[in-house]
């Protein structure tokens, strides 16, 4: 998976490069619009992360010119939180946009979404000794049926599909409850707490982990056993 980052702020580039490389992407970058456009037009990328405010050629223009020849998925980064900015970006052919300040996890989630990567599409998922059947909506652990509510199952499914990936609260809220605006509630924390009691409560080996300030991971960590 090859990603192009067009961004002029060195710190942003540095952490995006590091983070995405560690996630297994191969990352190129350009620090101005002209170079970025040139790279995007000549090389094949799976996705382009494009800042709106760029020297020499602004992001929207870069996108418009790129769209004349290529349909590479583009995620726009914008600091302007206005409807016009969004419309401008999407109207110019962006596949998605993120408003600064955005979280890295969210960028990752959207990148995975537009590149259709990192998601387990099968209907039966196993995490350690936890088994999920997405068709019959049943979950078992160590062979024992877990008694989950519909929402709890949906939450577990979202985490299981992204096994071993950190899933942010925003993504959880969006996918489990179809809520796509900022909420300052602790619904996700409470829901996770309850789910954890049901799937991990009676077991020594914990599967549902909290990554403070980021989100939650569902994974089997053998070294933590015992």
């Amino acid at each position, binding site marked *: 998976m090859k990603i192009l980052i067009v961004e002029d702020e060195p710190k942003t580039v540095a952490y995006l490069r590091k983070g995405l490389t560690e996630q297994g992407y191969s990352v190129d970058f350009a620090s101005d619009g002209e170079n970025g456009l040139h790279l995007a037009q000549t090389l094949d990328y799976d996705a382009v992360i494009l800042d709106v405010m760029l020297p020499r050629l602004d992001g929207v223009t870069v996108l418009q010119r790129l769209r004349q020849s290529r349909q590479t998925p583009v995620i726009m980064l914008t600091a302007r*939180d*206005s*409807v016009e900015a*969004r*419309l401008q970006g*999407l*109207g110019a052919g962006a*596949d*998605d946009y993120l*408003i600064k*300040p955005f*979280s890295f996890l969210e960028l990752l*989630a*959207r990148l995975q*979404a*537009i590149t259709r990567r990192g998601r387990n*599409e099968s*209907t039966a998922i196993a995490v350690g000794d936890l088994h999920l059947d*997405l*068709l019959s909506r049943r979950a078992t652990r160590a062979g024992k049926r877990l008694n989950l509510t519909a*929402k709890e199952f949906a939450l577990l*499914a*979202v985490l299981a*599909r992204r096994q071993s990936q950190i899933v942010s609260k925003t*993504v959880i*809220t*969006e*996918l489990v*409850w*179809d*809520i*796509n*605006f*900022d*909420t*300052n*509630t*602790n*619904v996700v924390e*409470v*829901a996770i707490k*309850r789910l954890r009691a049901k799937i991990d409560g009676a077991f020594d080996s914990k599967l549902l982990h909290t*990554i*403070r*300030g*980021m989100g939650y991971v569902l994974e089997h960590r053998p070294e933590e056993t015992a």
Partner: protein
Amino acid sequence: MTPTSIAGRLTLMFAVATGLVSALAGVAVFVFQTLELRRHQAEELQARFEIVETMVHRLGEAGRWPLLADKLTSFTPANDAIRYRVDSPDPRFAYGAPWPAGAQVQGPRQGLGYVRFEGRRFMTLSKMVGPYRERPAVRLTIAADTAPFDASGLVLGVGVLAASLLTTAAVSLLGRRIARDGLAPVDRLSQHAAALNPDDLSLRMPTRRLPAELEGLMTAFNGALDRLQHAYVRLSSFNADVAHELRTPLSNLIGQTQVALSRPRRPDELEEVLHSNLEELERLRTIINDMLFLARADQGAVAANLAPTSLAALVRKTADFLDVLFEEAGVTLRVEGDATIAVEESLLGRALTNLLDNAIRHGAGPGRVTVTIEDHGDEVCVGVRNRGAPIQEAHLARLFDRFYRLDPARENSGDSHGLGLAVVKAVAAMHGGGVFARCEHGEVLVGLFLKKRDAAEIVAPPRVTSEPLGSVLAESA
């Protein structure tokens, strides 16, 4: 050209008014005096006529007629300003020449009339004098030149005109002075107004020793200044609040990072610091995003993407999201009424989430939260009612202010940043509505009302602005 200054306009209006009035008065005086002069002349003519008539009347003998003729000749002045004429069928009893050829005669054969010849105008009086002895009936005519009276009329006319012009000029000059003096307070006020500036918001326009008209204006103006000052102070204190809200997490970030870096740490210790930092940073991000949202609403952003939505359904969806919180708090929800109205669902959902969350958070423990949806015709009212400690009127009014907390000690409770109800207010405003908060019978009622839009406004642009994450990430199963 219209003078632009009030003083100039007043002067012009004074001049025009005075000119008109004095012209009218002048014309009236002139006409009256002219009529009076004519009457005077006629009286004089009448008097002369009576004398001569008496003489003619008593004279019956042709022999004595030359005596009368001599007398009449002596009555006639050298410039022929007064002429006598006696027309008689008997030439022995005639006097004076007939009017020269081309004379224009006005008026009846008897009585007052005018005759004009040789460039002169005469007032005439004619009468028949009955026969006496030898003398037949004769016509006696006296003509008096009108020139002296016409001259008086002319002098009068010129005088009246001059007086009227002089009056107009004098009133204009005085009017200018009066207007300037009268408007002097305005000059003074404009100097005061020029001194107004944001550095000293307490400055006000003077209202004492002002003309009544200006006093009212200045009182109203000062009222506007009061409101502006209020808004300005609120804005600055709001800015101070923002700075304060950001300061605490920032100082935590700086402090704990410095402590962590001040000596070698184990990786898990450093990780702990990073996690803690991340939490603070997320908090900052939330505050900034909400502040930007509120700023947009302040700038007059209006809800777009309106779609007819059942409010009860939206409340239930929101409650479904908050379900675990309701359960944890032991609170049940009851939804009363419904209305379908055009709203931007994600905005209203956000407001409802905050309202319900607020009710759970600040309610008096386990119990029931009631959402009442009332259709009031042109607006719809959504109220969230929960049992709770009574809130004073002063606090109720400020409940929707940014960063306003009933209990200052909860300021850094972490899970609430004090913008929840401000967001509710902004959402209501974006839908052309407002918010309300009441406290009655041990219950707190907080809610918002939304204006119903015309059907034409509901035709929303394509929903490209809604967050696309959901559609892109939508689970396939």
